[in-house]
Every structure is written in C-alpha cells, then in structure tokens.
C-alpha cells in the first residue's frame, strides 16, 4: 500500500482519473441525447408484463424506428417512483404502466394526461368499442364517467382455480359458495394429503386482493356508498372468520405468500384450490413446469350471500402530464393497445382487454380458460376508487395479515383497521379542504 502511494507519477494518474470522472459525472446517460429525440421512456412492473412489453418495444422499434426504453421496478417500487414522478413538475417517464387501484390517486394529483385531445389529433373520437367496458371504466376519472386518462392493457381479473380431477374423483361439483370451498377443501385435502386451500397472506396488496372477493361475497363493503369505511361490519367479520378457517387448511407460512408461492403450490400439486391471476394459466398448463397440466379447472369467484365477483386488476398505460414527448408516446400507446399488438401480448401470457381477442378462435384454443376469464372480467368489481387507496390497502392489509398470523382475533383486527382507515380518510379530507 505504502509503495503505491510513493510513486512520482501518482499525481498525473490522479489528474487523469479526476478528468475522466468529471466527464462521466457531468455527461448525461450514455448517448441518450442523440437517440433521445426519437425515444420514449416507459416505466413498467417487473415480471410477466415487463417481458411482454419488452418484446412489444422491440417490434415497435423495428417497424417505426422509435425506441421505447423500458425501465422495470418491483411492484412497491413502481408505485413509489410513479408517486415521485407525478408530484414534480418535470417527469422522467413518457409512458407509465399503473395498477388500476393506483389510478384515482394519480388522476387526482393531475398527473395523467387527458387522452381526448390526443385522439383528436389523430382524427379519432376515442377508444373503439372493442375494449371491455369494465376495463375502460377504470381509465376514467371519475370512475366510468369522467375524462379518459389511460388505456387498459392487461385484462386481469382474479380467477378461482381448483383441481377438477380431484373434485370428480370425490364426486363433488365445482364449488359454488365459499362454504362449499371450505368443506371440499377439508375433505379432499385430508383424503389426498394435500393442502385444501392456498392463498396470498402477505401484508398489503396481496392479502387484500385475496380478501376482497370473500368480503363482497359475504355482502360486506370496504367503503359504503358515501365513501365511509365499513370494515368492521358483521359481514366483514364473517368473511374474515371464513378466511381464517381456510387458513387452517392452507400451507404453513401462507401468511407471507404472494402470487409466486400460490402459483407454485397449485402447479406442484400440493394445494387443491386457490385464487390467482390468469397470468399463471400458461404455467399450470405447461407439462414442463407444472405437475397438474390439464387437471386444473377455472371458475368465477364462489358466491355466498351475494354472487361471486372477482376483483378486477387491470394494468393501465398512461402518459404523464409532464412528459414532453406526449404525441410520440401516444403513437406507441395506440399501437400497443391495437388488436394486432395486443394479440401478440396475449400470446405471451398477458390477458387482453378487448372482446374480439377473448372471442378469437385461435386464442381460445390456446387458452381454454378465456371464456371464464371474460365472464369474470365482465362481472368483476373494482377495488374502492379512493385517492388514498394505497394507504388504506397497506393498513387494511397489515391488520388482515396480523389476523391470519393470530396476532389479533378477527373482530379486533377489523375494529382496529376501521379506526385507522377512518383516520386516514379524515386526514386526507382535512388536507383537501385547505
């Protein structure tokens, strides 16, 4: 070490290093400037959606010569980055992918560009009628009636997966109500030495997404018609109690599960039933990755007091207001949500948001669950369209997870959740009125 520092030429080397460093620091990212004029930066969720979009970007560049640069983040990070992006005046991204529950917040922040003027520049009236109504409704602020601020790209809504071969074997009909789910789970699980049910218990978005269909089926609501929380209603308590009973026949550690673990248990044949996203269907049907190819059945959500409804969970694409490449971004947006491009995305495993594609014969053959998916989408419900949904979901999700972990009994967990959610909304309203 000492020998190194004694050399005479040290100063020259040091000066060179400094010069290089300054150049590297002050120069903008690797030659982005020249290409920047014909390029668009898109922020996406890491995972199957990102993979699909990366392919689409390559196709687009080949066809039109415009580079679509994709930067991907894990789900929670994506939300954080978008929140930051929309709260400043300039923005890093030209196009963003957002989960539909985040939409009300970003719309409220005035972060998303109104698409109507952009459609007008193309001499179009607006999105065509091929888009599924529930998906398009998500993209309007206020919900279903207001200005169009995004376009739906991935038509996810939860599906109920069950081992149809085992149900047949035990002479059971596919589960119609949640009580059926419980009894079937207990019976088949014991007989086949499997876990009767598997679910997402990880705090936050995962567990809330799995709980909403239960809550709705039992007749509960998270927010009532006036937007007030009703999380501690008797219906909600009943729903949570059923969830805990399902938890007893779920794999240990489900309290930390996300879609990854749920999918793995279903694919490995260690669980009988579960809720998951349609993106998993290709995996389940692939003999290489799944031990149960051809033996999984798809159904809409079980009912109870009310008809079963899945939570819709579409990925939307929007243009930030602060982007200065809006028309370039809009070109890509129109292209990627067109029937042809969306078809390619569907083939890659992302459910479409267009009726024509759900009814397409070839796609139906490749994805036999499409009819059920379409049915689920059409009958789906969105999660409450509150601008503080992210906070509510996080808080609610923590208490749900704690109830499943046995930290609080169901009634108390929901009472605490109610109290906290009321506080969240009060703070938000107080800030708005200033």
């Amino acid at each position, binding site marked *: *070490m*000492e020998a*190194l*520092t*004694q050399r005479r030429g040290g100063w020259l080397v040091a000066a060179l*290093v*400094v010069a290089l*460093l300054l150049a*590297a*620091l*002050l120069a*903008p*990212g*690797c030659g*982005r400037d020249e290409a920047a004029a014909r390029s668009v*930066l898109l922020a996406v*969720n*890491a*995972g*199957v959606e990102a993979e699909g979009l990366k392919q689409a970007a390559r196709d687009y560049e080949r066809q039109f010569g415009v580079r679509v640069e994709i*930067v*991907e*983040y*894990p*789900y929670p*990070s994506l939300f954080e*980055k978008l929140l*930051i*992006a929309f709260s*400043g005046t*300039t923005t*890093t991204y030209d196009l963003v992918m957002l989960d539909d529950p985040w939409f009300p917040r970003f719309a409220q922040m005035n972060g998303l560009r109104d698409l109507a003027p952009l459609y007008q520049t193309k001499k179009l009236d607006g999105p065509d009628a091929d888009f599924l109504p529930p998906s398009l409704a998500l993209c309007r602020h206020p919900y279903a009636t207001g200005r169009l601020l995004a376009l739906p790209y991935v038509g996810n809504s939860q599906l109920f997966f069950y081992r149809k071969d085992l149900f047949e074997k035990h002479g059971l009909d596919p589960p119609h109500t949640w009580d059926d789910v419980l009894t079937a789970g207990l019976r088949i699980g014991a007989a086949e030495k499997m876990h009767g049910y598997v679910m997402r218990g990880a705090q936050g978005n995962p567990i809330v997404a799995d709980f909403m269909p239960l809550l709705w089926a039992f007749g509960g609501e998270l927010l009532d018609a006036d937007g007030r929380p009703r999380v501690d209603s008797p219906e909600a308590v009943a729903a949570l109690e059923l969830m805990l009973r399902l938890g007893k026949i779920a794999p240990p550690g489900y309290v930390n599960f*996300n*879609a*990854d673990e749920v*999918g793995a248990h279903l694919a490995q044949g260690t669980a009988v039933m579960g809720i998951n996203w349609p*993106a998993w269907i290709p995996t389940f049907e692939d003999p290489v990755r799944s031990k149960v190819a051809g033996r999984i059945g798809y159904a809409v959500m079980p009912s109870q007091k009310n008809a079963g409804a899945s939570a819709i969970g579409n990925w939307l694409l929007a243009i930030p207001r602060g982007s200065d490449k809006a028309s370039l971004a809009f070109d890509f947006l129109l292209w990627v949500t067109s029937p042809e491009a969306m078809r390619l995305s569907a083939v890659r495993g992302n459910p479409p948001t267009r009726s024509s594609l759900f009814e397409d014969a070839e796609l139906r053959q490749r994805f036999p669950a499409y009819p059920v998916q379409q049915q689920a989408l059409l009958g789906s419900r969105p999660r409450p369209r509150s601008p503080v949904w992210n906070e509510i979901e996080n808080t609610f999700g923590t208490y749900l997870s704690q109830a499943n972990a046995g930290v609080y009994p169901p009634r108390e967990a929901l009472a605490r959740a109610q109290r906290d959610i009321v506080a969240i909304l009060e703070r938000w309203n107080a800030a708005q009125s200033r």
Partner: protein
Amino acid sequence: MTRTRLSLRYAALGAFALFFLFPLYWLGVTALKPPAQLFAQPPTWWPDPPTLAHFRDLLAGAALGRLAWNSAVVALGSTLLALVVGTLGAYSLSRFSLPLRLNHHVSFWILSTRAFPPIISIVPLFLILRQFGLVDTRLGLVLAYAAFNLPFVVWMMKGFFDDLPRELEESALVDGDTPFGAFRRIALPLVRPGLAATALFCLILSWNEFLFALVLTQTEAALTLPVGIANQVTQYEIRWGAMSAAGVVAMVPLFFVALLVQRHLVRGLTYGAVKG
C-alpha cells in the same frame, strides 16, 4: 497447551468458519448453477455443470455493466470530493486554532454524524435535490454521499494529521514558506498512507450504500448495483440466478480493496477510537 484444548480450539474455529463462510460459498455456487438446478429440491451442493449464463444474461440486458459503472463512478466521485475538501478541512482543524471554538464544535458535529440514521437525512436531501433537478443523476448521488463521506474523511485525516509532529511544518513556516506550501510539501506526503486508507474506506462505504441510491435513482442513468440487486425481487418471482450473479459482482472488488486497507481497518471502522 493440552491436546484436547487445542483440538477444541480448532473445532471452534471450524464451526465459526462454517457459519461465516458457507453462505458466501452458497452465493457463488448459486450464481454458477444452471437454471434447472436453481429450483431443485433438495438443493444441489455443487453446480453440475457450472455455467456463466447468469452473468451473461445480466451483461446482455446491459444492466450489470451499466449498474457497475454507475456504482464505480459515484463511489469514485464522492470519495474524491470528500477527500479533497475534507483533507483541507482536517488540516485546518488540526493545525490552526480557530475562533468561536470552531475546532471543538466542528469535531463534535462530525462525530455525532456517525450516529445519525441515514433515513433522517434522506427525506430532506431528496426534496432539496429534487428542487435542483438532481434526482436520478450521478452527480446528485455523489453530493448525497458526501453527507457521510465528508465527516468520515475529516475525522480520519484529522487523526492522521494529529499524529504528525509539527516541527517540520513549523520550521518550514519560519523559513518563509506559506501555510499552503507547508501543507502541500510536508504534511501531505507524510500522510499519504492514511489518505489512501481513508479513500479506500470511502469507496467501500459508497459502493455498498443502498438507501440513498434507492430513493435518489429512478432509471439506468443513475441506478447503482445494490438497488439493481434489490430489484430482482419482483412481484411474481425472485430471479435467484441474476441476483446471485449481481451479488458476486458487487462483492469481489470489495474483497481486494479490503485486503489493501487491512492495516488501517480497525482505525477506520471505529473512527479512530481504537487504533488497530
């Protein structure tokens, strides 16, 4: 020493070695495993055959090279900034008696920053940097890192200067040299080993840093290696192969740096409280 006692010691050493070194071995092995074996149950203890596919994939996605470059530039930049500014400041604190008891106050302040949780600075730093448009830039990260590198450099270099007897500089001053001349020609060359050690410490600290990078970067323009590694934990799956390969890349340069700086390791770690 009795035979049993000696063998007990070696047994203990073996147990420690197993605990501390096995996970590192596991990281390396995972990075070299073919994708099929990553999910094998029970896990295979040795990749068969070992493959560089994960490293290639990372490089191919342009991600790894870019991230490592960002990490390196930011680490070097902030180290240099802290070193230049901090060494001058340290010399001043060591040699001159400043008014308003500045020597004492500044030293106190610098020591206390060692205790601060970074989360305290990150909220205001983020908002301040955003106003200057420095979020998602390497320059912004370099400035943010100076927040912990600078106090470290000042404290360490002050210690090294304090250890230097003043007679040489004093005689130079008497001979008519300027204070800066005495600093440059006499003091600086004599603390070169300390300077190098301090620089290497700053490099390690900056290279490993996560929280600031997580908040202050958004795209590949500034994303560093630790954040890139964390981003492999996606919503649907964890890309073990990619994550392990990136982990190995993040780790290997540091090992060599640490070897270089071994002599001053304890002094650097304890802010000079224990001279190792």
